[in-house]
């Protein structure tokens, strides 16, 4: 039995006046129902571009998309990259849904919450507006909005940031999707509200048995919710594996660097942070060889200047743990500080 979503060799690029922007490059991964895959990376690493491609939200005329993203539905597999646009549209909001970072700009300010939720429901269900509002109220209750029958009539500006994100989650889940993509769902929220929303996402995943892709830059959030992790850098997956493997035995210098560079609230020794030098490369005219080479402190350990000439492939280092790096296991152990 194959996973619910299987992405294979997905490549997205945008032709611009300055040249071709290689936003995401040769992305392959899968997510199954009940599983949470976290996609971590900095701005411009291609994490959002990849998920928008899966949702079929890129303009096909101005974007070059190659590869496949297969949804294994009960009615049979569909490749959302090659399927006709109106077929993909009928999957959005039903088989797959998405929530965004900023709930205020994702909700329409002129329509009540109930109208917006029932519109999403009535798209795929037979029922009048009244039935839609009833369903909307049920969903608001499910996502923990107090006094749902009253609040369903209110407008987005009457809700706080955390409550708006709950509304977004209710809307995304109203047609019982099998895949939920959450793009930085808690970045705009305060920490105490963030932990409420993360808990809600966990509960909803159980309730609906969904596959969840969580896009974030926050390694703390990832550690809390992810089963598996894709680490992205300059449009490519540089490391892929189960969460514990990524955190305790990272196999890519970028992941090692990230984990060393973030202060931890539970470590009070006041050690100096080990920053990753430099900044990410431009996605136009990416350098030959490894994209991370110029910021990598270990690149000079690789023989024959290989990092500068040959782009490393995503190789399996261990059982189901992949990394895109030329370093040998011995060199990696040293890079991790002996672990």
């Amino acid at each position, binding site marked *: 039995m194959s996973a619910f979503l299987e992405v294979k060799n997905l490549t997205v690029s945008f032709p611009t006046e300055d040249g071709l922007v290689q936003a995401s490059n040769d992305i392959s991964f899968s997510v199954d129902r009940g599983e949470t895959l976290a996609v971590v990376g*900095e701005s411009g690493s291609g994490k959002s571009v990849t998920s928008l491609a899966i949702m079929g939200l890129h303009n096909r005329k101005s974007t070059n998309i190659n590869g496949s993203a297969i949804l294994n539905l009960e009615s049979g597999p569909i490749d959302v990259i090659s399927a006709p646009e109106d077929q993909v549209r009928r999957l959005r909001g039903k088989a797959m849904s998405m929530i965004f970072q900023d709930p205020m700009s994702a909700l329409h300010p002129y329509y009540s919450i109930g109208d917006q939720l029932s519109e999403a429901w009535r798209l795929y269900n037979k029922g009048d507006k009244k039935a839609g509002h009833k369903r909307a109220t049920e969903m608001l209750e499910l996502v923990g909005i107090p006094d749902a029958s009253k609040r369903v009539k209110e407008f987005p500006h009457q809700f706080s940031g955390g409550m708006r994100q709950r509304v977004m989650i209710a809307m995304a889940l109203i047609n019982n999707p099998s895949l939920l993509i959450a793009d930085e769902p808690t970045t705009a929220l305060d*920490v105490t509200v963030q932990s*409420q929303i993360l808990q809600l996402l966990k509960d909803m995943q159980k309730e609906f048995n969904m596959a969840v892709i969580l896009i974030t830059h926050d390694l*703390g959030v990832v550690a809390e919710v992810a089963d598996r992790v894709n680490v992205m850098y300059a449009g490519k997956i540089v490391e892929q594996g189960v969460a514990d493997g990524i955190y305790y035995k990272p196999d890519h210098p970028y992941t090692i660097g990230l984990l060393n560079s973030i202060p931890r609230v539970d470590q009070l020794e006041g050690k100096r942070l080990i920053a990753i030098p430099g900044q990410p490369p431009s996605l136009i005219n990416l350098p030959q060889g490894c994209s991370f080479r110029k910021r990598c402190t270990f690149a000079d350990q690789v023989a024959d200047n290989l990092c500068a000439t040959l782009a490393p492939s995503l190789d399996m280092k261990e059982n189901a743990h992949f990394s895109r790096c030329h370093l040998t296991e011995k060199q990696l152990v040293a890079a991790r500080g002996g672990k």
Partner: protein
Amino acid sequence: MTQPVLKITGLKKHFPVSTGGVFSKGKGVVKAVDGVDLEIFPGQTIGLVGESGCGKTTVGRTVLKLYEPTAGTIEFNGEDITKLTPKQMKPRRAQMQMIFQDPFASLNPRQTVGTLIGNTFDIQKITPEGGKVEEIQRLMKRVGLNPEHINRYPHEFSGGQRQRIGVARAIALKPKLIVADEPVSALDVSIQAQVVNLLEDLQEEFNLSYLFVAHDLSVVQHISDRVVVMYLGKVMEDADKKDLFLNPRHPYTKALLSAVPVPDPKIGRARERIILQGDLPSPVNPPAGCVFNTRCWKVQDKCRTEVPELVQIQPGHKIACHFPEPASK
């Protein structure tokens, strides 16, 4: 004992707001800051944390007199600056600088880096030793920018580099105090550490004092010596860093700390989390009694009527709570 660089006592900043519609005459106040005490000693970093709307940014700005305080006193280097006019403030501003959150909004896009940093000298009518251009280039080099880029415009730099420009501008006049308002929260993870390290190095070099305003407790924990936790304009807890993080006594601090995600899956799964219900109440109409009572899991009748005073419960550790958490050790 050395004199604090900055001492604020009972600081209040209230903003008037109209409460009704366009034609209503109803006037209310937002008590953005409502009685804050704070001391910063030379070379010390005070972390000021809290959620959005707690007043932490307003404290930072009022300290620099970018806002006129409603009540309370601000002492800078032992001098009371509360009542000083903008003109009287000007020479003193060379000693107190600010680093802003958004490196895109805080740099004039039409000015070159040289002008942006050089302005600080012009405004104070100071000619640096060895020439202005040389000094600007020395500053650029010090913060990790290429001095040859002196004639470039902000858009030619990345976010991290722009924040370095902001830092160079802040240290140009060798100030004693820098108010850093969320200086790294707009930056990517791998860049944040670069700027945090730079701030720490500069502190050591110039014996700077920082008022570090941020919502990210991990960063605050890393950089601060003392931490002040605010909620709805009031100080909830004020303690030495180690004390605060290992032994939080205020229920709000405890909940806040338990909500911070830790980049370690095993700890993340095992940790007991206190999930606070609801959202921050509106600062226009704060709850009576203790401002935290609507979200506190230990709330009792007394909390709804009596405002808890900020009191010292052990040396160097102050909290404002009727029912503090027990000390863990």
